[in-house]
C-alpha cells in the first residue's frame, strides 16, 4: 500500500493506486491522483469525473463503458458520447483512469 501527500495529509492508496478509502476524495486529491496518471485535468476531464461521481452517488456502481458513453452522450452532448472522445481524455481507459481520479472503488475486473 502506498500513499500520496495532499495538503500535508497522507492519503492511502491500494496497490493499483486507487483510494483505499473513497471518503478521502476531494478536488485536490483528484488533482494529485491525476498527476500519478500523467493526466492534465481540463474542464473536459472534470466533466467526466463529475459525471462518474454523480453516477456513483445515484447508483453505487461505476457504469460499464457502453453505459458510460451512452449516458455521457445524453447528458453532455452527442459529440462526447463515444469511446474515442473518452480515450483521448483518459488514454489508459476511462474505467481505470477516470474512475481512479474520480475516487471510485477499483472496478472488480470481472468481465
Amino acid at each position, binding site marked *: 500500500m502506498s500513499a500520496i501527500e495532499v495538503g500535508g495529509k497522507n492519503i492511502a492508496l491500494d496497490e493499483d493506486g486507487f483510494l483505499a478509502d473513497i471518503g478521502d476524495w476531494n478536488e485536490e486529491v483528484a488533482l494529485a491522483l491525476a498527476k500519478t496518471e500523467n493526466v492534465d485535468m481540463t474542464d473536459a476531464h472534470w466533466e467526466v469525473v463529475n459525471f462518474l461521481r454523480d453516477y456513483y452517488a445515484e447508483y453505487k456502481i461505476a457504469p460499464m463503458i457502453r453505459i458510460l458513453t451512452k449516458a455521457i452522450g445524453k447528458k453532455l452532448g452527442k459529440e462526447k458520447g463515444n469511446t474515442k472522445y473518452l480515450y483521448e481524455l483518459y488514454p489508459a481507459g476511462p474505467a481505470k483512469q477516470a474512475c481512479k481520479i474520480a475516487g471510485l472503488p477499483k472496478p*472488480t*475486473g*470481472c*468481465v
Partner: protein
Amino acid sequence: MTFGILVQEGPYNHEASDSAYHFIQAALAEGHKITGVFFYNDGVTNTTKLMDIPADDRHISKRWSELGAKGVPLIVCVAAAKRRGINSDVLIDHARIDGLGQLSELCIESDRLITFGD
C-alpha cells in the same frame, strides 16, 4: 450434449459440491461434454489446494483438480475469489481465475446450464 455447471456453495458445509461432482462424473460417463465448471459465491473456496482432509473422507479440491486434469475447464470467478482470499498462490492445479464473462460464455455455449448451491 454439452453441459455448463455453476457451483455456488463452498465444500463440506453443504452437499452442493458433491452433487455437482457426481453429476459431472455421470455426464462424462454418458458421453456428454462439460463446457466448464464455474465457481461463484462461496463456491470459489472449492479450489484452494490448502485443504488438509482426514484420509477416511473425500478430498474435495483434489477431486476437482483431477477433473481439471481430464480436461474439464475449472473457472474461478475473480471478484468472488478476491473477496474470499483465493488467489493463484493457493489455487489447485488445472483451475484458472477468470471473469464473470466466462459464466456468460458458458450460458451461451452450453446446451444446458445447471446450478448447484445451497
